[in-house]
């Protein structure tokens, strides 16, 4: 039952974040790149003012899997690094987001080598 509740929270919060994006797509002419960047900046901002941690504690992956969670991770790393000094403040963000960026580059490159373009056939 507890497990069910966890997934329900994840589903609801993750779904709601995506609905906000869909609302932006429906009612404005905003491109997906802009949605990604503004959601990312929203995540950085919400974590910087100390709000997003509560959402993450509540919804788990529902809050961290959307791109807002990537911004949250960047801001969190920077804030933790800032406790250790100037060097930490500058490198903290990209250190904590390093796994995401690295895996996107590695998997992106490898799959680009393996697969061929399919978009023309669809």
């Amino acid at each position, binding site marked *: 039952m507890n497990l069910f509740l966890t997934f329900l929270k994840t589903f609801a919060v*993750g779904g709601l974040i*995506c609905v906000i994006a*869909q609302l932006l797509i429906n009612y404005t002419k905003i491109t997906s790149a802009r949605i990604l960047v503004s959601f990312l900046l929203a995540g*950085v901002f919400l974590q910087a003012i100390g709000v997003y941690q509560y959402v993450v504690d509540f919804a788990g992956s529902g809050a961290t899997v959307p791109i807002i969670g990537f911004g949250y991770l960047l801001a969190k790393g920077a804030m933790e*690094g800032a406790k250790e000094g100037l060097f930490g403040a500058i490198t903290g963000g990209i250190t904590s987001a390093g*796994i995401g960026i690295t895996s*996107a*580059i590695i998997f992106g490159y490898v799959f*680009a080598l393996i*697969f061929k373009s399919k978009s023309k056939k669809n």
Partner: protein
Amino acid sequence: MKTKNQYINNNYLNYVKSVAPKTNEVRSLLRAFWVGGFICCLGQFFRIIIENNFELPPDMTAGYVSMIMIFLGSFLTGLGVYDRIGKYAGGGSIVPITGFANSVVSPAIEFKTEGYIYGVASKMFTIAGPIIVYGVASSVLVGLIYYIYYLVV
């Protein structure tokens, strides 16, 4: 002259409006909701598996989860499946981290014919580039603000 242009412009815009496919708004919201929620639940599923089988600090667990999600997003993009999910779900497929992976892999595959430097490696960052630039810049800003805050307080 200007008014005539505006008239033509308006006419054209009305024409575009009448021809462009009307997306059923409620349906598109529902689709974004369940697909986005489902992708997040998939992440939660991997997170619980990692938590139960490996004793890792929470940050590392979250890191491995995003790595798995990025792997899945890239793989499905390579197979051509993710673009179909995107057509169905819209925002539900863009916002999760799998959408970020899609935005990296999709142009990389598309522009493979232009070579491995100006094609694959350069086009990979068409959308991911801005995300990394603004992400890193804003995180440095937050870091500096907190650094000064800790110095003062």
